[in-house]
């Protein structure tokens, strides 16, 4: 596998509060604070974290759909390294043909005044890449790949259910044959049975079209299912990245442990025994000194309050930002209740 994307020390600031008299901004909140990671061609990297952890902001910043404050983004395209941050507006627009996004809410992401055919075909027209019968052929082909019926194409989005709308949004994102897709909570708003259909569709399309996904979600079970590797974010920073199995079964960061142990497994004989986090999540406007998790971590020591741990590689491919990463033995998903048999539960 070759590298597709390398992100280094990316930061995103948002101004908060009112602008001053001369338009000066008074304060900033750092939504993403020095994040670095790589994505290999053809893989799915999951990005998880609680609301407000900065995962959506990071997803957008990687595409420069939202302008990062600083950092480097290098994208490998046709055997050349493209510096995304150095591109001008036209250069960026040209690169966006290869990088697309799928959003959470299929109700607000589709224009209600356009037919499905126009919605899916619009990127081709905007980029002057096809017209006439060629345009129609490509729209029909992509719609069918996404499980839509040709008869659906002349209808408007309101005639479709959430799952069908998400298929339309996927077809629109893929019509330009991009290489890299940011899926921002793409299955979160869907019912269980439909979520399974869309997850399966994304996987099939990945194989057929050789796609690379950045899969942002808060549903940890769906992420485990869809991703090769997973990164965990807390207060704007990545605290752990590893392969899915390693991250879920043998987490090395105390925050990952709290997340994993809190997943309610759909099995009544597996009684959940979560590691409860104490206190409230600190505000991103005023993050704690040292390790950002130190205010809620049960393994906290003096060093955690003083210095911020770097994201370091312990085992190969398993990166953790914790001073005590090597010393702690942490619970993974499903480790709870493994010893509790069905009989004791039933009684």
């Amino acid at each position, binding site marked *: 596998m070759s590298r597709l994307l390398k992100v280094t020390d990316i930061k995103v600031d948002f101004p908060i509060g009112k602008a001053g008299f001369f338009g000066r901004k008074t304060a900033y909140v750092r939504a993403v604070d020095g994040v670095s990671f790589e994505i290999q061609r053809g893989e799915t990297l999951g990005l998880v974290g609680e609301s407000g952890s900065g995962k959506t902001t990071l997803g957008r910043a990687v595409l420069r759909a939202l302008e990062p404050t600083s950092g480097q983004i290098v994208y490998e395209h046709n055997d050349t390294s493209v510096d995304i941050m150095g591109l001008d507006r036209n250069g960026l627009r040209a690169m966006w043909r290869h990088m697309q996004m799928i959003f959470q809410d299929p109700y607000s992401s589709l224009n209600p005044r356009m037919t499905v055919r126009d919605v899916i075909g619009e990127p081709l027209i905007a980029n002057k890449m096809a017209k006439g019968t060629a345009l129609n052929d490509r729209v029909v082909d992509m719609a069918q790949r996404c499980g839509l019926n040709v008869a659906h194409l002349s209808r408007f989005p309101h005639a479709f259910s959430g799952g069908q709308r998400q298929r339309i949004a996927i077809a629109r994102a893929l019509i330009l044959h991009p290489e890299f897709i940011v899926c921002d909570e793409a299955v979160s708003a869907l019912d269980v049975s439909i979520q399974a259909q869309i997850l399966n569709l994304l996987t099939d399309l990945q194989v057929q079209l050789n796609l690379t996904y950045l899969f942002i979600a808060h549903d940890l*079970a769906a992420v485990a299912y869809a991703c090769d590797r997973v990164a965990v974010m807390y207060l704007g920073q990545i605290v752990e990245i590893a392969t899915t199995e390693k991250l879920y079964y043998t987490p090395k960061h105390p925050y990952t442990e709290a997340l994993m142990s809190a997943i309610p497994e759909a099995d009544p004989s597996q009684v959940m025994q979560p590691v409860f986090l104490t206190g409230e999540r600190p505000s991103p406007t005023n993050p704690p000194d040292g390790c950002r998790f130190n205010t809620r971590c049960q393994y906290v020591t003096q060093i955690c309050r003083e210095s911020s741990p770097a994201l370091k590689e312990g085992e190969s491919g398993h990166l953790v930002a914790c001073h005590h990463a090597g010393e702690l033995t942490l619970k993974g998903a499903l480790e709870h209740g493994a010893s509790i048999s069905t009989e004791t539960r039933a009684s």
Partner: protein
Amino acid sequence: MQNDVLLDVRDLHITLDFDGEDIPVVQGIDFKLSAGKVLALVGESGCGKSLTSQALLRLLPRELRISSGQINFRDPDTQSTVDLASMPAECKAIRNIRGNHIAMIFQEPMSSFSLLHTIGNQIGEVIRLHLKATKAEARALSIDLLDKVGIPDPARAVDQFPYEFSGGMRQRGMIAKALACNPSVLIADEPTTALDVTIQAQILEIMRRLKADDGMSMIFITHDLGVVAQIADDVAIMYMGKIVEKGPVGEIFKNPQHPYTVRLLSAIPRLGDLSSRRQLASIRGSVPSLFERPPGCAFHPRCDSFKPGLCDDQFPPLTQLSPIHEVHCFLYQTAGEEVAS
């Protein structure tokens, strides 16, 4: 009514008034809630689970009404049984039950509190209305309740406004408010859906303790089968306004019988076996709209065991697979008849 049954819902129908036309939304459901038990009503969006829970307290929106059926509630103090479905929606008797004997918590902790009053005033209002307590007593009780649901520094929190609370704290505040009059039944409508997973675990733990320590009976509305497995004693699976399968949680998860339940359970991503990932079973098609309800068993267009002429003709009657496990499906109906003959 049996002694330990608090709520006995019989053949409940809810219809939507759509420009003078009656559209059936909930079509004759039956369930019982026993003391100290958690019953989960499970289904995908549009199955009628939330409307059922609202109907129990007569909180249905204006365009919806209970068209027939009974909601028998036994008051644990007086031991008298009343039919909530037969009462006017705004009578004194129902107000006395609502919040006092049966309390409800909602999905949206953000919109369930008034922004203009302190948390303590809002919990205290319930206490003063129902228990005729003084302001000082109400305040003291509010602090106790906030403490019980795990809010740190309850004496300070009682004077805070909802905007000062995080989402998880607001949901705890909601539970505290619901518990104010020590109700015998708690109806929880998707109480953890809007919360992060670590907060969800905390809320589930509070609810589990309520059940274990106080013997609270609950009706838990959710679409999340993981949450159901962790909290429920009994499960009723709903599809398009009908209960299709009902039984104890262990039985439903280990031994599901209705094709919808079987497919639903295999469609959830599980952590137990990550090596087999990326091949989820899904249910083809999607839930039809209320106005295009398929005749007979509403699941038949999506079902692999569909029998033409039977499933699309009539809704299958109840089959009692065991004393505790019920299903509505012709697959078992024929089997049952064979055994009988």
